[in-house]
Structures are given as C-alpha cells and as structure tokens.
C-alpha cells in the first residue's frame, strides 16, 4: 500500500495543529459556528442528531492491520466502542466530542490517516473494487490509479470550492463492484494493445435526482488521465450551478447541457490544457506509485487445500460460509474473504473495537496485512491461503464476524437514518433489521440467491436505494414514517435506477410485503440460477407490484 513520504506526514501533522487551534477558538466562542462549519467539514467533522460525527478517510478502502487497530483504539478511547463503515469505504465515529477531535486526528496521523476531504464541496475519497489486486476478473490493479488521483485531488487549489461534493470511482474488472455509473466520474481501466487507458463516465449520481453516468470518452491514455480529469473539473467548476444546492452536482450540468455539448466543452478545455499546461504523467512516476502496490509474495500452493476440504466436509456451517463469502483469487491456493458486518439484527457496517482488533490480527497473521472496506459496508481480507481458512474462520466466529451472507438478501446497504442523521426523515436501521429477520433462515437466503436490498432514510440516498434490486426509501408524511419501494435498480456494469412501485408502506408492513415479492420471484423464476433482477427484467414489474400490495 501507499506509504507517506516526509511531505505527506508534515502536511497531515500541520493540519492537525491548525485544526486544534480552530477548535480552541470555537470553544472560546471567538470563532462562530457559521465560520467554523466549513473548517470542521474540511476535517470530516459533522454535527449530527446526537453529537459530532467524525468521518475518517480510508483511501479506496484499503487499511493495514496497524491502521485498523488504531481505529479500534479511537473507538474505544474516544467513542462508544464501535465505528461505522460507510459506502464511501470510509469509517465514521458517531459520538466523538469536539474537544477530543484534535487528539483523535493526531492519533490517526501516527498511522498515516486523516479526515481531510471527507466532507465539503471537494473531491472526496476515491473508491474502488474491494477485491482490487486480488480478483481473477480484473485487467489490472486499479489502486495505483486511485492513489494517483488521490494525490492529484488532495488540496488541489482549483477544486477546493466546487459547486458541490465530487465523487470518483475506479474499476478494472468486467463485473463492476465500484458502482462507477453512479459516480460523478466513473473510470473503467481498459487496454488498447499495450496502451493502458480509461473509459470515462461522467454525471452519474443518486440523491433526489438520480442519473446514470454518460460515457464521455471511450479511451483516455493513462499518461493523459490527469489532464482529462482536470478538463472535466474545470468545465464543472465554471458551468456547474451554484444558485441551487439541489441542482449543483455535475449530473445536472451534464443533463442540462446534453451529452454532446458537455463533451464538446470538455474536449475544448482538454485541448487548451494540452496546449498550455499539460501534466503528462512521466512513466517513472506511474511506475513509482505502482511499486507501492506490488502484489504480496504468495507462496506457490496447490489449487486444493486438504485442511479446507476436510473442514468443509465436517462442518456444514463453515461449508456454507465458504460457499458464500469467498471470492476467487488470481493465485491458485488463495482466496478473498468477505468479513460480513451484517449479522441478522445487527447494524449494517458497524464493528466494535474488539471486532476491529480481531480483523487487524487476522490480517497481520494470515492476510499479508491487507484489509479492505467494501462499498457494501463489509470488510474484506483479499489474500488468504485456503489452508488458513479453518483458523481464520474460527477466529471470525469467536468475534461474531462469521455471518454467511455476502451479496445475499440480508447483506443490505443501510444508511444511519433518523437514529443518527440530522438530515434523515425516517429510520433505516430498524426497518433493515426487520427485513433481515424475515429472511434470516440461511437455507432460504441461499435459495433466493444474490439480491441487493438497499435502504435510505431520506432522498439524499446515502443507503443507495436507487440502485438496490429492491430499494427502500424512508419518507415523512405528517410526522409518520412511510417507506417507498423501488424495483430494478442495480449498481454494476448493467447499472439502472430503480422504478417506484407505488404508494409508500408503513414500517411494519415492509418485511411482509418484501417476503411476498421474493416468494413471487421464487415461484416465477425460470430456474434456480435466474437471479431476482433477471426475473424482474424478463417478466416486468407488474407481478411483483401485485405481490407487494397484496393483502398481508
């Protein structure tokens, strides 16, 4: 992984000192909240329903054991013994006191972490495939490019005050696990002959006006990537709306200008950029960053592991976990593990300090000190030998981290909702838990197969409801919570925005209604291999709407 150089370390440390002074002045009342707010947001500090919330950056979701252990220490010493992993592959602490935040940031700086650009109208954490560098189906490891973009965008003086926040995702796999089509910029790494380049999608996003990104350029060669990104950002910075917060994202600009005009403006800016101040990346610099992401030296192993096969044969629970939570690794004898943070009745994405310590230990002992946070709010150990799976599983089980539900119906993306969030209109977590309960039976879940349910507690869509196969949106109707259901969304390479099924449901009615929908799918699917989303596409939404609103 990338390691700080002396400049990185100094910048982060100086930022901690600067923020310490700002907090001191805020508490003295000499800095007013209206003045302080943009400063705290630049350091990842929100004021939520109950307390301040600190969002810490985890670049493209990658952590070392030492870093995760430090996050556990922060959770234990400054929060309420847990943290919440987010869809931006970051972590949030929900109860941290403002007076302590400078100390927390100093602790993070000790392990090369910070909270810079995790909020505000700037380029946020660049996200990526959580199996990057390990998965069989990738063209190459996208993380070096995430790091290059991170370095370019961090403290970029021109892009510190954009019209709105800005999110970039990068993938290099055919199966898109980074949701690039619902990002402000989504990059897909491609190759033409020997030349590496990027397919550039612009103007995707969720929130109150969901859009899928437009393919703006099919191939930008790698050396010119930053020039091209710079051109997009300049067009956005110049023409993006600042008069209306709800129309300020680049998706609105692309939509209002139209694809052709937006592309023309970008090309014009790009040409000027190439003429006047091009920033061609030298190959030596590309190579230097790539060197930080050299694959671990995995000892050669046979395809099959006798220890793994033996435990599968004797322990059906382990066998189920292995069927569901493992992802094929590019190296024979190895696998990637999803550590589910979605136990039935738990809080999606939450991990206690003790659980974080367990995963840190496992990473250091068995997984080449590499941990990822997935945008679906789980943790991943990307490089684990099949031989070590029995030991890893035993430790995960002891820590309550062995839920076998990766990409199954109970592996829901759930925003904090009205239980924590100052913007939410309705609760998400208890509804998510109630939905999990009706699908809790492991055989039932496995029979249903891959089905993504995503829940948001307001139209800002932090719970990605627009791209859930089934989406749930909490709304407030005269003080009462209702839940609107959408069908047909997806975040992968066949990205789609879900369609609203009809009137909202009361919270208590949601689990039963979804069970009817899912059971209808089980009756109507062509065969067991046809996913819910495929049956929905084949038959249309009507049978499922009918099931949704049938008398319970």
């Amino acid at each position: 992984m990338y390691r700080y150089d002396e400049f990185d370390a100094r910048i982060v440390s100086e930022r901690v000192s600067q923020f310490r002074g700002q907090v001191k002045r805020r508490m003295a009342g000499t800095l007013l909240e209206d003045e302080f707010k943009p400063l705290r947001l630049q350091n990842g500090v929100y004021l939520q329903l109950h307390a301040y919330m600190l969002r810490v950056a985890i670049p493209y979701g990658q952590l070392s054991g030492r870093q995760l252990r430090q996050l556990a220490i922060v959770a234990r010493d400054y929060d309420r013994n847990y943290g919440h992993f987010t869809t931006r592959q970051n972590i949030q602490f929900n109860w941290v006191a403002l007076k302590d935040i400078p100390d927390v940031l100093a602790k993070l700086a000790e392990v090369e972490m910070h909270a810079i650009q995790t909020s505000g109208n700037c380029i946020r954490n660049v996200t990526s495939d959580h199996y990057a560098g390990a998965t069989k189906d990738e063209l190459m490891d996208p993380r070096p490019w995430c790091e290059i973009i991170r370095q370019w965008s961090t403290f970029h003086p021109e892009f510190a005050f954009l019209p709105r926040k800005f999110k970039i995702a990068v993938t290099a796999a055919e199966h898109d696990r980074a949701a690039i089509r619902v990002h402000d910029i989504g990059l897909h790494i491609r190759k033409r002959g020997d030349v590496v380049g990027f397919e550039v999608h612009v103007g995707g996003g969720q929130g109150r006006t969901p859009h899928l990104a437009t393919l703006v350029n099919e191939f930008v060669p790698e050396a010119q990537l930053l020039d091209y990104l710079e051109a997009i950002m300049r067009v956005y910075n110049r023409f993006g709306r600042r008069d209306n917060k709800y129309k300020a994202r680049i998706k609105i600009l692309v939509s209002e200008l139209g694809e052709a005009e937006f592309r023309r403006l970008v090309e014009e800016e790009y040409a000027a950029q190439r003429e006047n101040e091009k920033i061609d990346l030298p190959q030596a610099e590309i190579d230097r960053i790539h060197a930080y992401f050299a694959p671990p030296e995995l000892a050669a192993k046979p395809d099959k592991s006798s220890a793994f096969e033996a435990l599968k044969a004797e322990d059906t629970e382990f066998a189920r976990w292995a069927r569901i939570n493992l992802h094929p690794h590019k190296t024979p004898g190895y696998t990637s593990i999803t550590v589910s943070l979605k136990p039935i009745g738990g809080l999606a994405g939450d991990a206690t300090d003790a659980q974080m310590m367990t995963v840190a230990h496992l990473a250091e002992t068995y997984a080449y000190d590499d941990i990822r946070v997935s945008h679906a709010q789980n943790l991943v150990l990307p490089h684990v030998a099949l031989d070590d799976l029995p030991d890893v599983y035993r430790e995960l089980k002891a820590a309550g981290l062995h839920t076998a539900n990766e990409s199954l119906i109970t592996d829901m993306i759930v925003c904090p909702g009205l239980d924590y969030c100052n913007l939410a209109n309705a609760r998400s977590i208890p509804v998510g838990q109630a939905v999990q309960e009706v699908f809790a039976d492991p055989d039932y879940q496995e029979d249903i197969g891959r089905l993504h349910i995503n829940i948001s507690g307001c139209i800002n869509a932090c719970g990605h409801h627009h791209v859930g196969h089934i989406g749930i949106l909490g709304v407030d109707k005269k003080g009462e919570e209702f839940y609107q259901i959408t069908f047909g969304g997806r975040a992968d390479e066949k990205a789609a925005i879900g369609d609203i099924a009809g009137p909202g449901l009361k919270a208590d009615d949601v689990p039963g209604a979804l069970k009817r929908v899912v059971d209808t799918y089980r009756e109507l699917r062509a065969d067991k291999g046809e996913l819910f989303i495929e049956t929905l596409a084949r038959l249309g939404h009507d049978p499922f709407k009918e099931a949704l609103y049938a008398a319970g």
Partner: protein
Amino acid sequence: MTSVRPKLKPDTPKAVTAWETATGQNVWMAADGSWTQDVSKVAAFTGDEAEARLADAQTQEGIVTDPYFMEVTETGEITGRETLRETIRAKGPTVSYGEGV
C-alpha cells in the same frame, strides 16, 4: 445553521434546544435559562419570551451550537410533527448499538 426546522406559531409552546459546543451533546434550556442534558427539565416558552430565549441562546456560541425551537406541550413534553425526531434526539437511537447489539 446546521438544523433547519419547521416554523412554529408564536403562541405554540416551544422549548429551546441545542448542541453543547465542546462535546456535541444535546442540551435543552431550563426555566432559569441554564442548559440541561435532562430533557425532563425542559421549559416551555411562548411568544416574545420564546424569541428572547432563543436570541439569548444564539449569543452563547462557545457554550452551545445551533439553538432552535422544538415543539412541546405547556408542561414540556415533546409533541408536534417532529415528535419522533426530537424523541430520538432526547433518548438516543431506537436500536441497540456497539457492544449492546
């Protein structure tokens, strides 16, 4: 302002609530104008007095942040359209969290 809440009529009983600046904890204004973390000690105000109390809170920047009106009954119980939000704010999340799960 972080929190934009619905407008309340002058004669609607209301309490003043905010976040303690140093910690972020929720606080409510008691009858004597002091801040309490105990929502049962909240005082209900109306009319000009309510406006004066809010204005006073807004001058206490180092102590509290983003004070606003919250609808209550005459005896200080949370009521009105934002009952759920304000109850969660007063009592905490409706779900167990952390080691309590």
